């Protein structure tokens, strides 16, 4: 059997693509596709931030007239005055864009596509054509989502979680819930398809295309993170797709998977649906939704491990523990979805079970955190911008993760569910820690991707402004949540118990911090785009890092290793090895170490 298998290889002759379309549009090159994903995520995050600025503006100055908003949606913001419904629409698109098109796209599909094949010593992904299709599928999903801004009814307003029955009953529910909600489902379904194709590509590539000598325990932690994330994506996105199909059928097929009987909406009795269960939507959605947030954070964890090690000039502390911790986080991530539903009327025993599993995730997370600290401890730190963002990741992951332990306990969650406490929690872990992972990755791999260096001074200014800014924005939310500040309200002055100076002043503070922090991102954008064209040329290995991407030119040739096949002799984190010629050993180095060194 082995002999016949040896003859059944498919051999692709890999020649450099020619023509603009083949090189830059429908490219099969994982590096181009990675950059396409990255810039898609960048466009998405810009839109997402604009939406968040509008939201924070409205929350604190609800009577402000934002004149250009009137042009975008005369119905949603007549005369520029945002209606509460339109606020919810902006909130829905903010969440959807950020969670799907930024946090699932850039760390995994962007950096993963670019870096993973090179780090394992391969010429490309396992299935380049599928890779190209994955990107363009995702792009179509993005366009469909943005289209909801321009339809008459406006974008959907049921949140990125799209809870039934609001999302299921159709246009009777009011603005945004007609075509807008249907397009949301279509967009997300398309996104699911693209993600699933990408996930299977990552898994096949990591398992089967590693270079000679690249055993699983020599893989950089970035590769492990992308691999485990791909497994999570493969298992969870299919469930979201199923949920989306059922929701779509409820909306256009007259079914009642999620719509119960006896509903009266907008003074109309909903008589053509009955017997469905809104709770079913919650279960299906969160079965996907919880692994999704680990999909958002795991690549950042891998990048942080990699970058902390590189710039501490020390091996990562506890390499194997880091792998097992990521696996544990991924595995446990499938067992905790009910913690989003503690207030749904579930049995207290179910609540107990979900609570215990949720708190259990704190263990591998803590292991990783202590290992990061252990990596830094005693290292000869090189505080580059990438390093600052990686350290920032650790800080924000701790801050955001700790509040999760509160939310994990049903009695504590009861008063703070659906308050700003939750908003603060998930923004710190997803909206900031994961984004810091992306910033760290950007500064780290920009030289390799574009052959130029980014400006470190601007990078550091951007880092400090952002780091201080996000703490200013999101820390007060924990106080507000405990005080009872409900989330998803478009403003607070018309709500008795919230219309107090204390709460309004905190919100004003957060809004101003948000505007400043959003403005600071312009420094990053300027740095990025300036450096793309006029940054100083980058060497092959400007960071003196050890993994295989730093053995090839910056930027790499189309087939990565110039037709050669690297052979790996060392693990990924051989820094400060006693007896070595330098303080780092490249993975493909054939250097042998003299015994007797310290």
């Amino acid at each position, binding site marked *: 059997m082995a002999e016949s298998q*040896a003859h059944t290889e498919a051999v692709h002759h890999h020649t450099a693509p020619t023509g603009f379309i083949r090189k830059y549009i429908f490219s099969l090159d994982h590096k181009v596709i990675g950059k396409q994903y990255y810039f898609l995520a960048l466009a998405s995050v810009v839109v997402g931030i604009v939406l968040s600025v509008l939201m924070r503006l409205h929350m604190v100055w609800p009577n402000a007239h934002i004149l250009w908003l009137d042009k975008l949606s005369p119905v949603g913001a007549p005369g520029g005055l945002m209606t509460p419904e339109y606020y919810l629409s902006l909130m829905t698109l903010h969440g959807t864009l950020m969670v799907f098109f930024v946090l699932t796209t850039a760390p995994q599909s962007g950096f993963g596509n670019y870096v993973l094949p090179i780090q394992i010593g391969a010429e490309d992904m396992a299935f380049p054509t599928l890779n190209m299709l994955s990107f363009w599928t995702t792009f179509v999903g993005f366009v469909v989502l943005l289209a909801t801004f321009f339809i008459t009814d406006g974008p959907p307003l049921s949140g990125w979680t799209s809870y039934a029955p609001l999302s299921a009953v159709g246009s009777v529910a009011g603005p945004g819930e007609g075509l807008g909600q249907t397009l949301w489902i279509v967009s997300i379904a398309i996104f699911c398809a693209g993600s699933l194709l990408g996930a299977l590509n990552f898994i096949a590539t990591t*398992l089967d295309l590693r270079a000679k000598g690249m055993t699983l325990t020599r893989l950089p932690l970035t590769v492990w993170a992308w691999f485990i994330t791909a497994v999570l994506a493969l298992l969870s996105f299919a469930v979201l797709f199923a949920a989306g199909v059922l929701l779509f059928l409820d909306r256009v097929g007259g079914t009642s998977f999620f719509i119960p009987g006896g509903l009266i909406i907008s003074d109309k009795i909903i008589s053509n649906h009955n*017997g469905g269960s809104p709770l*079913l939507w919650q*279960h299906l959605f969160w079965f996907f939704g919880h692994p999704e947030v680990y999909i958002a954070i795991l690549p950042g964890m891998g990048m942080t491990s990699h970058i902390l090690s590189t710039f501490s000039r020390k091996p990562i502390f506890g390499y194997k523990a880091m792998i097992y911790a990521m696996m544990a986080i991924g595995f446990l991530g499938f067992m905790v979805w009910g913690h989003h539903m503690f207030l749904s009327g579930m049995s207290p025993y179910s609540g107990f079970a979900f609570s215990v599993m949720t708190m259990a995730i704190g263990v591998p997370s803590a292991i990783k955190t202590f290992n990061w600290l252990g990596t830094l401890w005693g290292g000869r730190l090189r505080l580059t911008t990438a390093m600052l963002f990686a350290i920032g990741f650790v800080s924000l992951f701790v801050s955001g993760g700790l509040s999760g332990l509160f939310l994990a306990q049903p009695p504590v969650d009861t008063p703070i569910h659906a308050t700003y406490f939750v908003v603060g929690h998930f923004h710190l872990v997803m909206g900031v820690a994961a984004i810091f992972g992306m910033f760290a990755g950007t500064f780290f791999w920009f030289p390799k991707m574009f052959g130029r260096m980014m400006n470190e001074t601007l990078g550091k200014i951007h880092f400090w402004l952002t780091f201080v800014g996000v703490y200013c924005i999101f820390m007060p939310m924990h106080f507000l949540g405990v005080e009872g500040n409900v989330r998803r309200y478009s403003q607070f002055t018309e709500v008795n118990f919230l219309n107090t100076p204390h709460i309004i002043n905190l919100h004003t503070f957060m809004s101003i911090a948000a505007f400043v922090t959003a403005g600071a991102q312009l420094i990053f954008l300027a740095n990025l785009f300036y450096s793309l064209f006029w940054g100083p040329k980058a060497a092959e290995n400007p960071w003196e890092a050890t993994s295989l991407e730093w053995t090839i030119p910056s930027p790499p040739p189309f087939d990565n290793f110039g037709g050669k096949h690297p052979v790996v002799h060392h693990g990924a984190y051989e820094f400060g090895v006693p007896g070595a010629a330098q303080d780092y050993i490249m993975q493909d180095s054939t250097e042998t170490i003299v015994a007797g060194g310290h």
Partner: protein
Amino acid sequence: MATVLTPPTPTIPAGANGSGRNGSGFGGGDFGGRGGQEPRGRAVPAQTYRTGMWMGLVAIVMLFAAFTSAMVVRKGAAPDWGSMALPRILYLNTGILLASSLAFEFSRRSLAAGWADRFKAWLYVTTFLGVAFIGGQLVAWRELAARGVYLATNHSSSFFYLLTAAHGVHLLGGIIALFYIVARAPQLADRIKRRVVVDVTALYWHFMDGLWIYLLILLTVRL
């Protein structure tokens, strides 16, 4: 305290596995770069396509697991289920699908043994039976429609249409792959290296067969 350092000397690769295997997965493949470093066409081992297909099947399993879960939860939740009787033609369709899997196996093994004609002949049989299955499913749907049972008639009919449609759509994908193989059959027969295409399609097809058996049992028992 100072360490004496000798200049690095080239040694034989010190990897734990000297044979080019990478710990897991298919080991017989030569990735084209053992030792010698001359540029070659890119070689993706056959195992990779199998891995990819298995991963795709995992995703499909999760999709149907979600549908199953939805169905079980719905049925248990409310008394308004409204059971429906399955059209009898489903059993004939099942037989057709099983026969098509058998035909595909004959085709695949003929290719492995180098019998090009038998490979093609059984391939045509498989494709025909696959299309017949889809036709039979459509007949089942029309029979239900004639009874006045549609997608939104009651909960059990919703799930029936959902599950059969989802399976049918996936099987159609398999049929498209079969058409592709039929069109390329002459080249496939000639080049043993391309057998992997047939192998992974067969894997997908058998999986669809097994999935249908599962769905039939689920619908019989829980609908």
